[in-house]
């Protein structure tokens, strides 16, 4: 992909082997191969099955609460004094983030495949909560793997999962974050391959997962496009979204990839800065490698050992990234930039005070980038940001850092 010929479309991937350029693929143990081939076949059938699509749409409207609003952030726009800022408000979804969009789709696939048990990995706990929610709704037992560090810093979500009937298994390997949770979920899956469906929460993992997650999250971008046309009569000038694994970002970006006038920016977790080890900016500071079933940009050492990332946001604390983002970076279609912990914290507080919206720490990273860019843009320009999660889960983390007792 180094010499990129002029592409007819940025929306054609993945190819039949699950590749986006050199990225993606199916790097899994043989035990899982037959299963992911089955999943691919079932997904391809479901995509064109009107009954499946009707059930998905019905649940989207009546269970998730879609479409999520497109909101003009008037006070924030005035405060920054530049481009008009719109939020796609997926934080208003049932369960409080975009994660439910994917979980509803995948649980319908699990049901079609006759699976009896659900497993999931989670970082911030948003995907764990969404998985536990759909498991409860459809009557599946559910096990959620969560790094021990994350269990501690996302206590409210751990409690929610337990209330919903899921078993939360803390993972102590490594730093006890999302990477370790994903390793453990994969081990469970290899062991219980016959009856278990693994709901991967981010647009990564072996093919067909990145495509499945994108398909179910693209509802964000599709709605936003229509809503923006209704509100402004034109497309936005810029999209901004946070990327950890990259599911909310690909959901917003994908329907716009072929709209040349729309500049697209993905925001990575810069942690405490890119000079040291304490960040999760795999696209900005990593290199291509193979982990968790796909080739993609990774934080790794010269021997190919994966490094532990760091972010204030558990949802961005992952040393990899969805393979499609790696490809979009190399082709230059999307620009990826890091935002530091402290910038995200400032953005978190600014939105809370100017708009009365408490954002999750993940979209607070996207917001920090918006805060940098909007003042440099004209007043008739438009930025659309994905406000992909609400911040209730983060108030304890933020309170601790700000020295406010709770």
């Amino acid at each position, binding site marked *: 992909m180094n010499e990129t010929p002029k592409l007819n479309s940025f929306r054609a991937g993945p190819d039949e082997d699950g590749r986006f350029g050199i990225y993606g693929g199916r790097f899994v143990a043989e035990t899982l191969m037959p299963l992911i081939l089955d999943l691919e076949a079932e997904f391809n059938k479901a995509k064109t099955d009107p009954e499946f699509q009707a059930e998905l749409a019905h649940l989207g409207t009546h269970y998730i609460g879609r479409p999520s609003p497109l909101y003009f952030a008037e006070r924030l726009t005035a405060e920054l004094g530049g481009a008009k800022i719109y939020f796609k408000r997926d934080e208003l979804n049932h369960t409080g983030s975009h994660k439910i969009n994917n979980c509803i789709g995948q649980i319908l696939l699990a049901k079609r495949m006759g699976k009896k048990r659900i497993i999931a990995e989670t970082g911030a706990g948003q995907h764990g909560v969404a998985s536990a929610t759909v498991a409860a709704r459809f009557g599946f037992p559910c096990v959620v793997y969560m790094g021990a560090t994350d269990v501690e810093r996302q206590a409210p979500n751990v409690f929610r999962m337990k209330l919903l009937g899921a078993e939360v298994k803390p993972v102590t390997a490594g730093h006890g974050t999302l990477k370790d949770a994903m390793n453990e979920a994969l081990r469970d899956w*290899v062991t219980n391959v016959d009856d278990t469906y693994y709901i991967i929460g981010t647009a990564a993992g072996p093919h067909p997962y990145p495509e499945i997650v994108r398909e179910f999250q693209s509802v964000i971008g599709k709605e936003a496009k229509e809503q923006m046309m209704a509100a402004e009569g034109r497309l936005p000038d810029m999209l901004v979204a946070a990327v950890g694994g990259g599911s909310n970002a690909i959901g917003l970006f994908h329907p716009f990839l072929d709209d040349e006038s729309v500049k697209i920016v993905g925001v990575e977790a810069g942690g405490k800065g890119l000079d040291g080890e304490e960040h999760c900016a795999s696209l900005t500071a990593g290199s291509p490698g193979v982990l968790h079933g796909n080739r993609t940009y990774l934080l790794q050492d010269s021997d190919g050992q994966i490094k532990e990332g760091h972010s204030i946001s558990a949802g961005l604390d992952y040393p990899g990234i969805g393979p499609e983002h790696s490809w979009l970076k190399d082709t230059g279609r999307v620009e990826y930039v890091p935002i530091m912990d402290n910038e995200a914290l400032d953005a978190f507080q600014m939105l809370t005070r100017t708009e009365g919206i408490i954002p999750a720490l993940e979209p607070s990273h996207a917001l920090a980038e918006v805060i940098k860019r909007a003042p440099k843009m004209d007043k008739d320009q438009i930025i659309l940001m994905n406000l992909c999660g609400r911040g209730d889960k983060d108030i304890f983390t933020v309170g601790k850092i700000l020295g406010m007792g709770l």
Partner: protein
Amino acid sequence: MTARMDKRFADLKAEGRPALVTYFMGGDPDFETSMKIMQALPKAGADVIELGMPFSDPMADGPAIQLAGQRALKAGQNLAKTIDMARRFRETDQDTPIVLMGYYNPIYIYGVERFIEDALKAGIDGLIVVDLPAEMDDELCIPAVARGLNFIRLTTPTTDNKRLPRVLQNSSGFVYYVSMNGITGSALPDPSLIAGAVARIKGHTELPICVGFGVKTAEHARLIGASADGVVVGTAIVNQIALSLTKDGQATQDTVPSVETLVRGLSTGVRAARLAAAE
């Protein structure tokens, strides 16, 4: 290079017994101790050596092998050193086949061409790369086989008859049948199921079938060896190494001898296997 592997299995067939295939993690608990373990294995009765390449995120391995990998990495092991272990082993042993086993990323970062070259130079005979299924053969399998390395494939109970030909297509050396779904180090499955599975795979290939996952004792080795061409022991050896270490993970004077004792016991199991089957 493939000759060494083929000769070993042909000789064992003539001898009328299955192979004892022993896995350990390169560099666990430290380079020198691990080197001594490797050199001790054939003397204790190992017929084929699987040399583990540590990886930070071994997604198909249980806690024992995960910890062994962490000990090795902490002691400074890397892929170049693991290849060097094979080179040093070859200075005194020209006959025991060595198979490198691990995950793809360290190889990818080392560089596929350079890796194949260095592996051949060091006297390595085969590769098992857990996260490279047949669908990914272009990555490493095809170039490695073209240069004369064996590419040994894992097959599992989920690998049905429809899929087996695809899985076996570019494989050589032997077939590694993972006798249950799951991670390494889980419980031993029913021997009669294993015999059935070995017979099923033999319907698709002339290659020797080695069975692993869950073998801990000489008795296990004897039971599995009754139907398989080889018995793979991994977690039991890695556990033995772990047991012999100090609290902070350093080798003791028991480390190498205790592994030798374990392997010698397992080796009596495989040597009794066909006798038992004939009774």
